[in-house]
């Protein structure tokens, strides 16, 4: 394990302090917590939005804290959901009187910890609503299981719910906007190499010199299929087809698209991958104004990519294009 760190136990702490040190006019750390909030939180008269999860997915989630997106981000240990008390601190700090929306990625741990935090907040009279993002089509959908994972599509929930909240909308309306993204966003990823949780010291899985894994989760959860390494165009087709088949889209529809690097895949390769995706979009006659290509929801230093597509209607598009000014997502 070769990492640019100091003590394994101090990673999240130093990372968070590094973030506030880098962005002192944007971010503030709640003392004694692992919560970063907007410098000016709480914003009176605006619904607060809190997200978060295990660390190791940077720029998620603190990179999306700021005007037009999140009010607070709660960081857990690497790949481990944060605890209820931390989430509760975030809720208290961002509540501007109109209540708080929790944006949770669908992992058992995240759901349970955020839920416990919501119980604590409600006990103190803060209005809280939750949404659970489950965009990863690599996992079979089923009401008998914990269901699909939340991955890069989460960022679009942040953006669109954030824009709705910035308009001054009520908690229920911000909640509805988030749900409408969740209903229409699907993702799928693949990996060429694993990643190493610092405290574990060894990779979460192994792949042969000529192997790749289709459907890997952002915590290195094993995927759905292990195959010989394929050309970028073929890989793009596998991910695209699976995502597309789960969406209800027609020729002429408009979509937002994220090409998300998982950590160590160079931007060069992400654009090569998008080159293939672009052809598939054109074949299906799906319109995309500008694809978002980069690292948005990573898995430490995993090599690989995920493809996310959100079906847009006029309302979603307007909210997506609305201004946001965060460290990692600037629009308008």
């Amino acid at each position, binding site marked *: 394990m070769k990492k640019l760190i100091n003590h394994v136990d101090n990673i999240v702490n130093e990372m968070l302090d590094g973030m506030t040190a880098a962005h002192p006019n944007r971010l503030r750390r709640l003392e004694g917590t692992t919560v970063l909030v907007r410098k000016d939180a709480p914003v009176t008269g605006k619904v607060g939005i809190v997200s978060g999860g*295990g660390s190791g997915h940077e720029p998620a989630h603190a990179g999306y804290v700021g005007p037009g997106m999140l009010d607070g981000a709660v960081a*857990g*240990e*690497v*790949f*481990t*959901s*944060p*605890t*209820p*008390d*931390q989430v509760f601190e975030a809720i208290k700090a961002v509540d501007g009187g109109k209540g708080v929306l929790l944006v949770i990625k669908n*992992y*058992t*741990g995240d759901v*349970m*910890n955020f*839920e*416990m935090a919501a119980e604590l907040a409600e006990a103190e009279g803060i209005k809280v609503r939750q949404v659970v993002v489950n965009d990863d089509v*690599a*996992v*079979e959908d089923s009401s*008998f*299981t*914990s269901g699909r*994972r939340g991955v890069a599509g989460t960022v679009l929930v942040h953006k669109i719910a954030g824009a709705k909240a910035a308009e001054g909308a009520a908690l229920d309306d911000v909640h509805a906007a988030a749900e409408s993204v969740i209903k229409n966003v699907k993702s799928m990823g693949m990996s060429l190499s694993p990643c190493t*949780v610092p*405290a*574990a010291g060894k990779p*979460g*899985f192994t792949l042969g010199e000529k192997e790749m894994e289709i459907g890997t*989760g952002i*915590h*290195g*959860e*094993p995927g*759905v299929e292990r195959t010989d390494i394929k050309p970028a165009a073929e890989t793009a087709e596998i991910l695209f087809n699976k995502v597309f088949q789960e969406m209800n889209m027609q020729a002429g529809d408009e979509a937002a698209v994220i090409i998300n690097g998982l950590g160590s895949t160079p931007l060069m390769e992400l654009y090569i991958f998008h080159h293939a995706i672009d052809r598939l979009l054109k074949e299906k006659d799906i319109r995309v104004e500008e694809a978002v290509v980069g690292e948005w929801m990573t898995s430490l230093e995993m090599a690989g990519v995920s493809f996310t597509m959100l079906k847009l209607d006029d309302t979603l598009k307007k909210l997506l294009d609305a201004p946001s000014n965060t460290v990692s997502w600037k629009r308008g």
Partner: protein
Amino acid sequence: MITTGTAENWMENFKELILQNKDELTTLDQAIGDGDHGINMARGVQEMHAMLQEKTFETPGALLKAAAMVFISKIGGASGPLYGSALMKIAAEAGDKAELTDQDLLACLEAGKKAVQQRGRAETGEKTMYDVWDPIINTFRGEETIDWKAFKKAAEQAVDSTVDMHAKKGRAAYLGARSIGHTDPGAFSSRLFFEALADAAQEEN
């Protein structure tokens, strides 16, 4: 008979067993999860140990409630809320009794089991820690005194039963049928939880 001292030994034994099996738990979680279960639990029991060093308690219930708070606020992940909620309900059931009979204890564990079930929305056979909590409590429900050797044996068997299960909850569920053939890490740590209790209770006698 569970005194405050037994409860403390239970938690300290749990700490020891978790630390001894930390790598094993992580390895199990790497196979069908995200590889942090040993790390998560170790963090939790170490913090709990530090807390126990600092504070003294009048009743088993008070001690277990404090342990629950540490688990809730220090572990995170899936296991934090599950162990935390379970211990919280165990403590609530224990109330302010100075000593718990085996029957009291079984009522406590029953409450803990229900907490795991509710918090995790877990059913039996879904390959989670609930598949240790549920059969153990079912086996000993209604007994006057607990045969601690049998108790440990039951926990061990329950863990083994998870190997052939197809996971439906937790991260392992993402693997679908590929989860079959592996031991559930949370089931394994739950066995340690009950083993720690058995050892503490046996010492007592």
